[in-house]
């Protein structure tokens, strides 16, 4: 079943209008909690849940049945489907234990997955790339800037690792080290905060562009 593209094309102004209303409905929360916001919020939750479901069906479930099972004869996948369906026992208190079986499979797969080169290689890359030159000579002369940068890098790394070393209590000189580590960490968190502000502001800029350009045609 399908609907003609011409008909949908004729609905474009209505679609834009609805989109603008939905956007303003959500933004109304900035003034205060109100029924319009609650309405839009619930529409979002319903639509998002449905979209995830239909996309999974169209991209994984349907091809799995049509192609893998019916065309290629991989009927063993029924076992995998049965395991996946066991999760639906979770809402029933008496049978919740059955839903642990698919969870056990996923947990085992991912736990085993982690205990291999898949986790080890990035870890080793991080460790080996932390061994920086503490006396850098480039083109025959001493490079003060790179040497300074590398020293700061290694000091910050070591201080942070000491700060999170919980096996030994940080007393005496180690306690002062943790204070220095906290300063470096606050600088790093400040960097993360600055990046986060940039990210959040740009999310709203996208909405403003939609409202001014597509909806109100002011730009």
């Amino acid at each position, binding site marked *: 079943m399908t609907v003609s593209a011409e008909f949908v094309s004729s609905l474009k102004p209505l679609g834009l209008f609805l989109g603008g209303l939905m956007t303003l409905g959500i933004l109304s929360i900035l003034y205060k909690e109100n029924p319009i916001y609650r309405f839009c919020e619930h529409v979002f939750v319903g639509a998002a849940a449905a979209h995830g479901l239909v996309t999974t069906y169209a991209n994984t479930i349907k091809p799995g049945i049509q192609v893998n099972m019916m065309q290629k004869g991989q009927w063993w996948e029924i076992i995998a489907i049965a395991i996946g369906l066991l999760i639906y026992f979770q809402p029933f208190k008496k049978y919740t234990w059955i839903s642990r079986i698919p969870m056990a499979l996923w947990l085992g797969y991912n736990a085993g997955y982690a205990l291999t080169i898949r986790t080890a290689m990035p870890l080793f890359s991080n460790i080996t790339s932390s061994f920086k030159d503490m006396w850098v000579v480039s083109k025959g002369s001493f490079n003060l800037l790179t040497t300074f940068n590398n020293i700061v890098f290694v000091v910050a790394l070591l201080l942070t690792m000491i700060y999170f070393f919980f096996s030994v209590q940080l007393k005496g000189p180690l306690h002062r080290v943790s204070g220095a580590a906290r300063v470096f960490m606050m600088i790093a968190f400040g960097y993360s905060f600055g990046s986060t502000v940039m990210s959040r502001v*740009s999310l709203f800029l996208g909405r*403003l562009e939609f409202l001014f350009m597509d909806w109100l045609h002011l730009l």
Partner: protein
Amino acid sequence: MQGLIRRMYNVDRRVIYAILLLAMALPMFFTLGLPINIDTYVEAAYNVVNELPEGSVIWIGCEYSASQIAEIKPMLQAFARLALQKGHYIYIGSAFADGCTTAHNWLQGVFAETGAVNGENYVIFGYRPSFNSTMEAVRSSVVEAMSDRDHYGNKLSDKPIMKHFEKASDIDLVIVFDSGSPGSDDYIAVWRSQGEVNLMICGATGVELPNQLVKYDAGLLQGVVGGMNGAAQLEKLVGVPGSATKGMDSQGLAHLTIIAFMVIGNIGYLLAKKQDKKVS
């Protein structure tokens, strides 16, 4: 005086919202057109795509949700445009329900502009819910991993483009658009760590940028484009200014407004503290 000080660090949140809204909205009508500075890691990402030999296989991982449109859309369009102009083949997959649907929407203009044809120059695989296991299966056969169906339900094995990409080791470059998990960490774990792929670049949201720089420094990523700022830099390098470039003035004024409020709040706080000390 005391009243003024208390008002300085007790501004109503709706006043802050209104001023912030004005700061973001006004530059959309009056552009400043200030020059954009290019970061080394953004230039590195651009160079990786630019210097690939023609006909390279590029996997684009759309690991983001639709809410990241403002940051990710310009990056996605810029990379796709550059790759298609250079004659590369692009394969788009996602572990997010919105990833491929938005890629289909946002790239139609780029496909039309570059004359790219579905099945010949690009293919969209579609959403697969379990990232690790699907990407693991791609290591032996991508057609099997995707159940021989693309995002639109068409047969993958019939498409001419699939002769260039049979398994993960055929990929020349992975471009991951990272907004959290799954993201570049997972691509590195599944493919990079097992030697299937040697080149990987990341288009990250601003929130993820600090984490991606760690991987860039470790050599796990060959370039990073972060946030709307990174997208604007990429648009400058590609030579096609878009929504990211237009948004930089608004972004700048918004940052200045937030900084101004932070400073005002702290001035009020310090003055109030000084007054309280005098009284006691």
